[in-house]
């Protein structure tokens, strides 16, 4: 048996060591899971975590890492601000979809005009779409005290039906011979989100993610708004005492996270995805929740966590093609990572004392 003893102050060492420990434990448990599926666990773990970085095809896969990490980081940084303030936007997937639809819609409306203003306008439209979708739970929460968790999540399902309507209806490619899916952005250079350096995977979305990480870091470390966000999450009554208006904070946090998710969707649809399709939404909005926690809700941590999570995606695909590991295994693997993270998190706030066991 053991007892938990609350530390007087959170341990700085464990705050940074817990994510590493969680990843290690997940590798162990994941290896067990893969073994159960009849795969060689060492091969599987190596394929997922080593090969994309240093294996035979690393030159290509490293770029893929950035492609996957970009939207994850962008969304997770936004979510982390809300999570810190105790505002739980878990509908980023919906905001991501709406950002893609708004961004792509504005772009496609101008097809085939060529102007260098088209892409910037699409960026604004994408952010606006995500922001708008996040404003629904924000306003319902501030006006009617409605739970933002449930509303933002319900709106994911609504966004998905709008997405399928877009792909089969109002955004469908008029020259697509009736097949669902919009015009492909690869045939629309002014609206395309291309690799800035060919083959690097470094597109505008990745750049935006890096900028966001820096901005969020400065906000949280140096700015009074960042302080208020942290305060509201840790001690809501103390925040009101400090003059923080809860309504403003809800609108701000949901707005930022919605706009960032919208941006991620817009960059994805015009770049890696290329077009609006029914199955465009691949779950980045949900995986970003894991990324936010794995990064300890700290922007720099999220940067690293986004890359680790991207590794599991890219490596997972490799393992799926090379070893026949089911792709669902990676999803379970990611969920497991969050479990371990939450479990070992206690080390930063509590000390574990083992009671002297009597010799039996």
């Amino acid at each position, binding site marked *: 048996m053991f007892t938990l003893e609350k530390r007087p102050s959170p341990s700085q060492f464990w705050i940074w060591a817990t994510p590493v420990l969680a990843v290690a434990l997940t590798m162990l448990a994941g290896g067990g899971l893969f073994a159960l599926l009849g795969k060689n666990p060492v091969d599987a773990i190596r394929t997922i975590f080593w090969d994309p970085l240093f294996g035979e095809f690393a030159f290509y896969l490293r770029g893929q890492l950035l492609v996957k990490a970009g939207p994850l980081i962008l969304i997770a940084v936004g979510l982390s601000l809300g999570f810190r303030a105790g505002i739980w936007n878990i509908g980023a997937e919906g905001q991501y979809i709406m950002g893609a639809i708004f961004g792509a819609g504005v772009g496609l409306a101008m097809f085939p005009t060529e102007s260098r203003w088209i892409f910037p306008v699409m960026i604004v439209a994408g952010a606006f779409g995500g922001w708008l979708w996040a404003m629904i739970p924000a306003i319902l929460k501030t006006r009617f005290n409605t739970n933002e968790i449930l509303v933002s999540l319900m709106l994911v399902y609504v966004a998905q039906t709008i997405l399928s309507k877009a792909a089969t209806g109002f955004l469908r490619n008029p020259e697509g011979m009736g097949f669902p899916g919009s015009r492909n952005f690869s045939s629309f250079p002014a609206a395309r989100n291309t690799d800035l350096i060919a083959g690097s995977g470094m597109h505008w979305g990745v750049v935006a993610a890096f900028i966001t990480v820096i901005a969020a870091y400065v906000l949280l470390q140096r700015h009074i708004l960042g302080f208020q966000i942290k305060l509201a999450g840790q001690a809501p009554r103390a925040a009101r005492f400090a*003059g923080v208006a809860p309504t403003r904070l809800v609108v701000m946090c949901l707005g930022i996270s919605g706009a960032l998710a919208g941006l991620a969707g817009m960059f994805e649809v015009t770049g890696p995805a290329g077009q609006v399709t029914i199955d465009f939404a691949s779950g980045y909005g949900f995986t970003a929740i894991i990324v936010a926690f794995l990064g300890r809700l700290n922007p720099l941590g999220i940067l690293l966590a986004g890359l680790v999570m991207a590794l599991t995606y890219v490596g997972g695909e490799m393992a799926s093609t090379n070893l026949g590991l089911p792709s669902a295994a990676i999803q379970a693997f990611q969920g497991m990572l969050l479990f371990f993270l939450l479990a070992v998190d206690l080390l930063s706030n509590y000390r574990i004392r083992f009671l002297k066991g009597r010799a039996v």
Partner: protein
Amino acid sequence: MTTGTELLRIDGVTKAYPGVVANDNVSFAIQTGEVHALLGENGAGKSTLVKMIYGLVKPDSGTMRLHGQPYAPSQPSAARTAGVAMVFQHFSLFEALNVAENVALGMENPPPMRELAARIKSVSEEYGLPLDPARMVGDLSAGERQRVEIVRCLLQDPKLLIMDEPTSVLTPQEVDILFKTLRQLAAEGTAILYISHKLEEIRALCDEATILRRGKVVGTCTPRDVSAKEMAELMVGAVLTPPARAASRDWGDATPALEVTGLSAPSPIPFGTSLKDISFSVDRGEVLGIAGVAGNGQDELLLALSGELRGAAGMVKHKGAPIGDTGPNARRAMGFVAAPEDRLGHAAAPDMSLVENALLSGTIRKGLTRKGFINWGATKAWAAEIVAQYDVRTPGTWVAARALSGGNLQKFLMGRELSQAPEVVIINQPTWGVDAAAAAFIRQEILNRASDGAAVVVISQDLDDLLVVSDRFAALNEGRLTPPRPTKGLTVEEIGLMMGGAHGMEVAHNG
């Protein structure tokens, strides 16, 4: 008082927590029918000791005997079965449940609800503590809540009744009624272990006293035979000087620094008390003391004055300017500072460092931000200054607020507010849970601020606080404020009546 047989004997009990020995080789005994005081300051180890008797905590070493038999309750239900009952100071009632349900939860084998309700009615009336079993506890006053706890204990025919600081939630008149009930119980043979740090009460009620200091028994006495001063010195371990106040002076202001007129506001707190038509004014250099039993609108009044609870502009005026609709930071800019009662969670963020907690309320008046960007250097320097000036015992300013002891944190928070050169000071419960030395220090600081020319409102449930610091005195009762009166010359009876008298309680009829 006839001395009965020995009921409970505590022998060499020790209990240590990491970093602190809560009880160090504590021994004493209680006879049947005796009212035994356990006297000590906050943090002296009284609570830990009674928790061991009630089975909530296990001693590291030492023995207890009940009726001469070894007694080691593994959990409260074992203690209850053995005839030990306890009235808690905090945390033992459920606001959203009714009286009967609350009583049932504290009993081992409660009868069916209908029968229980009938028994609650009869027992509560027998002891002069009338209660309606169907009422929601959240709607009861603090005194009525205590009755629920007492009745819950009485229904189990306790041999030993433990009372933890029972009078802190009562008016003086209610205290008299409680004492009558307790004497009646003692006469019937029930032993009572009475925990308090209020000396006069102990002298009025108790037969024997055991005095604890820093976990150790430092003395025993028969309270009626010794003076309060002797007991105080045993309890505190030092002679304390009462705070000094500067002679009052006229600041020559035409309008009062703070004026409240017809302040009414619904409570934002669940089961809270709404404020009803409150009016008072405070001049520069003056201290207004506001008394009242817990839960009569103290928290709400602080919120309304600090700006967390806004109302019509004209309800609160600063130097004649209406400010009732402004928020906390706007008021800080005008010179207001406020110190809420609840230190961890309201006045301070428990997991944040002292530096961050300094920033929490000092941003405006200390100019700690520029264009929204925080000047951490200045904030750190100020936090260190508070620590030095207010004698806060801490390893450093990077320590989380929750790591400080209650008294040290209170000194830090008082320092944070009082060192902002305030014009209007509002404090709720300045010395709650603080040891005597720190309390004296805090009272002195409040008086110093008043002599610097600040208008001060001190809300407190501790009459000692108010009688020492305030020039004028008022009391909150069910959200209403009595007209303030000069403190000098007020008697305890008058104060008690201002606080609401006995809240409809009947005097115990001996039967």
